[in-house]
C-alpha cells in the first residue's frame, strides 16, 4: 500500500456524487480500502503502513473478508482497492476478488507485482478482477532496487507485460521523492514502454515509514519545480494515450489536501486485523479507538462509531478552519498529519499556510533545501530506514 490515501479514489469525489441522502446526516461510502495483509516482500522506506503493527490479533480469515466485502456492497460501496502490504501474499486473493464482484464492487489490485505469475494472474482474471496497479520505484534496476530494498525491478517489468497481455487496465504508480525525482523523464518513458493506461506520479506523503524517513525523502524546491514542469509537459504530450496524474507534495503547498475527501464521508479502510478506519493512516491518532469488524457490522461502525464521527462534518473544527470559506473543500486537511506534526489530530493541518502550526512544517522544508556535498539526488540510499515486516503472529 503506497499512496492510496490520496490517489486511489480521486474521481469518486466528482460533483456527480450526492453528499448524503436528505433523510440522514450520515453520507454513504463509495470506496473501501481493503488492506489484506501488512506482510510484504518489499521494505520500501516510504511505505505509509504503520510503523507499529497492532499488538494482537491475527489477519482476517477468508470468510471474515468475504463477509466484510458483502457488507460493504450493502452499504453502498462501489469500489474496492485490494491492497496491503502485498495482497498477493494472501493465497485466497482470487476468492476474495470473486466475493467483491459478487458484492457489486469494482475491483482494483494494488500490488508490487512480486508473486504475480501467469497462473496467478489468469486466476485473478477469471475471478473478475477489473484493474491492476503496479508500483515502480524508478526507471532502472539499480536505483529502483536500492529504493525497494530488494531486487524487484526486472520482475515488475515482466509482470507489467503479463498484465497487459491479459488485457487488464494497468496503472503505473511511482512514489516520488528526493532519490528518484531527477529520473522523472525516464520514469515516464518506462510507463509508456510497458503500456500503462494511467500513470500516477505521487509525491511521497509523510506517514508511517515515510514520516520516519522524511529528512531523507523530502525533495528540494528546485527538484519539485523541475518535476512539475516535466509532468505538465508529459500530460499534454500523452493526452488520449496515457492519463498522467501528478500528486502534489503537500509540504510545499499553501492549502492542505482534502484528505479522503472528508473524514467518514466517502471512504473507509479495513486493516489486516479487521480494525475499521476512516483512512489508512488513522492509527497515527493514538488515543482514538477503532472498532473491529469481528465485533460490529460495517454499517454500524460507519454510521455510529466514535472514531467515524469524531471528525465528521465541520462542527469539530478549530479556528481558522471553522470560519474558513474552504472548510467544505479541504475539510481542514489531514487529521493524521495534524497529529504527527502538532501532536493533536484536532488541529488545522500544518500543510495549510493559515495554520498556527505552519512553522513546524516550514522548519522541516527549510532543512531539506540543501543537497549535501557530493549528494546527487539518487546517489545514496544509506540514510533510509527500511520498513520492517510484521511478526509471524499476524500471518
Amino acid at each position, binding site marked *: 500500500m503506497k499512496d492510496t490515501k490520496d490517489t486511489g479514489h480521486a474521481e*469518486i469525489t466528482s460533483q456527480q456524487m450526492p453528499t448524503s441522502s436528505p433523510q440522514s446526516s450520515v453520507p454513504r461510502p463509495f470506496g473501501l480500502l481493503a488492506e489484506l495483509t501488512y506482510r510484504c516482500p518489499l521494505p520500501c522506506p516510504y511505505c505509509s503502513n504503520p510503523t507499529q503493527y497492532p499488538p494482537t490479533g491475527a489477519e482476517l480469515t477468508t470468510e471474515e473478508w468475504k463477509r466484510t466485502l458483502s457488507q460493504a456492497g450493502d452499504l453502498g460501496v462501489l469500489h474496492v482497492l485490494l491492497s496491503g502490504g502485498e495482497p498477493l501474499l494472501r493465497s485466497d486473493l482470487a476468492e476474495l476478488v470473486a466475493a467483491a464482484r459478487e458484492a457489486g464492487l*469494482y475491483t482494483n489490485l494494488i500490488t508490487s507485482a512480486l508473486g504475480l505469475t501467469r497462473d496467478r494472474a489468469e486466476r485473478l482474471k477469471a475471478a473478475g478482477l477489473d484493474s491492476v496497479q503496479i508500483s515502480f520505484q524508478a526507471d532502472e534496476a539499480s536505483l529502483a532496487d536500492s529504493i525497494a530494498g530488494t531486487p524487484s525491478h526486472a520482475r515488475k517489468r515482466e509482470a507489467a507485460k503479463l498484465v497487459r497481455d491479459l488485457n487488464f*487496465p494497468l496503472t503505473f504508480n511511482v512514489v516520488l521523492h528526493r532519490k528518484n525525482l531527477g529520473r522523472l523523464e525516464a520514469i515516464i518513458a518506462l510507463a509508456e514502454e510497458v503500456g500503462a493506461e494511467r500513470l500516477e506520479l505521487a509525491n511521497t506523503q509523510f506517514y508511517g515509514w515515510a514520516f520516519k524517513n522524511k529528512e531523507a525523502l523530502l525533495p528540494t524546491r528546485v527538484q519539485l519545480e523541475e518535476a512539475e514542469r516535466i509532468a505538465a509537459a508529459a500530460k499534454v504530450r500523452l493526452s488520449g494515450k496515457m*492519463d498522467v496524474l501528478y500528486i502534489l507534495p503537500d509540504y510545499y503547498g499553501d492549502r492542505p489536501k482534502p484528505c479522503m475527501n472528508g473524514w467518514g464521508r466517502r471512504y473507509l479502510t479495513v486493516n489486516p486485523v479487521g480494525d475499521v478506519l476512516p483512512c489508512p493512516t488513522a492509527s497515527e491518532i493514538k488515543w482514538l479507538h477503532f472498532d473491529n469488524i469481528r465485533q460490529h457490522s460495517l454499517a454500524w461502525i460507519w454510521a455510529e462509531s466514535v472514531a467515524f464521527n469524531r471528525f465528521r462534518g465541520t462542527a469539530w473544527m478549530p479556528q481558522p478552519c471553522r470560519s474558513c470559506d474552504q472548510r467544505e473543500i479541504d475539510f481542514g486537511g489531514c487529521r493524521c498529519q495534524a497529529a504527527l506534526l502538532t501532536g493533536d489530530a484536532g488541529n488545522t493541518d500544518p500543510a495549510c499556510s493559515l495554520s498556527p502550526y505552519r512553522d513546524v512544517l516550514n522548519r522541516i522544508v527549510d532543512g531539506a533545501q540543501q543537497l549535501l556535498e557530493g549528494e546527487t539526488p539518487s546517489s545514496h540510499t544509506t540514510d533510509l530506514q527500511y520498513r520492517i515486516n510484521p511478526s509471524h503472529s499476524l500471518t
Partner: protein
Amino acid sequence: MNDEPHNLPLSSGTRPRLAAKARVQTDKISGKLALLYPEGVLLLNPTGAAIVELCDGQHTFQEMVTTLAARYKSSPNSLSSDVAEYLDRLRERGLLELISEEDSYW
C-alpha cells in the same frame, strides 16, 4: 480545451463503445446507473444513462441520436450536439472508444 462540437472526432457513422476498463451496474442506494472505472465512479443522471446504454459498439452515433430523440420527443438536430458533447467528456476521461466506419468492416 475545445468544446466546439464540430471539432469532435465523431461522424454520424462512428460507433461509440465503453472502454474495456469501464463497466456499468445499477447502484443499490440511489437506483441510478453507476459507471465504474479504475479511478472512480460516476453516478449517471437518466439522460446520461440513456446515452451510455447505447454505447455498445453496435449503434452508430446517428442511430443513438435518432433513438434518443424518439425517446425524449425531441428533434435529432437539437439533440446531436448535446450527445456529442457528453460523449466527448467520456472520451476525455478515457471511458469511450470510438470505432470508425472503416474499422467496422473488419
